[in-house]
């Protein structure tokens, strides 16, 4: 993946209030309760990421956008860490 493309996606995420977790290598937004893995961001198009950011379906649980969906145990672990 081109670095420019990755930089554009990073800008999209940061513009929408997402922060990068250096430890977990995910972009996350506590208010939206969503997290995108780096692998997912690299794999998907800008349009798809923007659409997932815009999707405001109310949720009390964290939603994780991973290439390989995480197990319930990993989701619990990450939800605890991300707060």
């Amino acid at each position, binding site marked *: 993946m081109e*670095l420019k493309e*990755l*930089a554009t996606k*990073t800008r999209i995420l940061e513009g929408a209030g997402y922060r*990068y*977790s*250096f*430890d*977990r*290598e*995910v972009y996350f937004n506590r208010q939206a309760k969503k*997290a995108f*893995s*780096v*692998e*997912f*961001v690299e794999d998907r198009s800008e349009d798809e990421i923007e659409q997932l950011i815009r999707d405001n379906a109310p949720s009390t649980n964290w939603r*994780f956008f*991973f*290439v*390989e969906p*995480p*197990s319930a*145990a*990993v989701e619990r*672990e*990450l939800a605890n*860490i991300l707060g």
Partner: protein
Amino acid sequence: MEGRTVEDKLREEYFEILPEIRAVCEHLEAEIKYRVLPISHSLDRFERIIVRSRVKECESALDALRRRQEGATFDPERAEAYTLRSLKDLAGVRILAFPRARLGEIDAALRNVFDNWTEDPVLGDNGEKLAFKYWGFSAASNEISGEYQIVSMLTGLFWEVEHSAIYKPSPQLRGVVRSPKMREPIANVLKALSAFDEEFELSIQQPR
């Protein structure tokens, strides 16, 4: 045992296999130094070859395995699925050469010995080869693999600076250097070092 984390299990595994990792490292370093010796003896005054070995530290090994998982998180319900033996570089040797014209020669000399090892070059973000890299099993162990890299001295020393200045004192900062935002500045540094190598090689080929 209840209450043990995946990390606890892996730390126990690390210290079980540590003597074997050390044996692989020593074997690999000795073999490589011996094979590179004829080249080292033929170097011009300005040329250098350095062979360095290291045993991956426990926390560094755990961190590397954790970061292989998407979301850099172990699944506590699949603890048995993780093993440090899956890391190829628990025992590693790096050969640094200046100028880089020597890299191919060193690679050819070592390929004769490690002919059944798997090639796994280090590539930059633009697909350019940054280092020759191979992994495989040696006579020292059929369970713990070793890895060797052959890299231009400037690039190798930059990686060492990254390691000693950032990861060593603050392992939690490893993720910063790996982050998408840091990839571009790192690519720029590597490009500049490569340009230096290239210009230097051209300059020394001209009559002085």
